[in-house]
């Protein structure tokens, strides 16, 4: 029997980028024991408004949003296995790490940091694979 592919809507409406922004993506897809989360940016989880700011402020928001999505899907930050941390400029690598440590202090997930352009002038985007 093949695995079921389950679309997991975000716990907070504002995080639904398909509904709020018309982006053709689901927030998270569950396949078996694994949860694949779309790239997350700094969005107000209640209103869906963009919360552009410093890399530090955006990273806090993104981690809090990621926590909402993971917990809504029966996972958690502690169950993350691999993260792609995208930042707009490598010069902010340490700023990212300072926030990062606060959310995954023990046994952090595998990670690669990519310096890339991010939509809407956001400074950080995280995508993730977690286990449920």
């Amino acid at each position, binding site marked *: 029997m093949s695995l079921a592919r389950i679309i997991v809507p975000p716990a907070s409406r504002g995080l639904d980028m398909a509904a709020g922004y018309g982006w053709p993506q689901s927030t998270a897809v569950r396949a078996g024991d694994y949860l694949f989360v779309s790239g997350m940016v700094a969005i107000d989880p209640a209103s869906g408004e963009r919360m552009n700011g410093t890399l530090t402020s955006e990273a806090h928001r993104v981690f809090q949003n990621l926590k909402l999505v993971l917990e809504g899907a029966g996972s958690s930050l502690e169950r993350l296995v*691999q993260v792609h941390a995208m930042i707009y400029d*490598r010069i902010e*690598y340490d700023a990212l*790490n300072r926030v990062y440590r606060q959310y995954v202090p023990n046994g952090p997930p*595998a990670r*690669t*940091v*990519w310096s890339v352009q991010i939509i809407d002038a956001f400074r950080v985007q995280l995508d993730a694979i977690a286990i449920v």
Partner: protein
Amino acid sequence: MPVAREIIAPQNDKLNVSRNLKLPHSPGIRAGDFIFLSGMLSVDPTTGERSPGTVAHETRQTLSNMRHMLESAGSSLERVVKINVLLYDMLEFDNMNGVYRQFFPKDPPARTTCGVQLSAGMKVEIECIALAG
């Protein structure tokens, strides 16, 4: 029953870059039937120092370290299902491929290559998902 989540580390401590440099990630995570590795750089396995060089050199050292990391966890390069290669400049794509081919001579894994900024003047970073043991 929930899937087990286990941190993976290389047998050679010198290659445990995240621990040695106190970075907030693990070398790798095993979750169920899969192993997820962090991005790896060219690191000298005898000194633990970064080993910058040509793209060919960095690709060779990085994949060699990746082989060690996977074998430390009971997997192997032959069990890799997806790889992401980050290059400092896509002009060097062919130089990376020349070495890459030697590590994956047959039925290579799915792969994405991107041109990005890397840390500390390094030219190549490689991460992967592999089947566990």
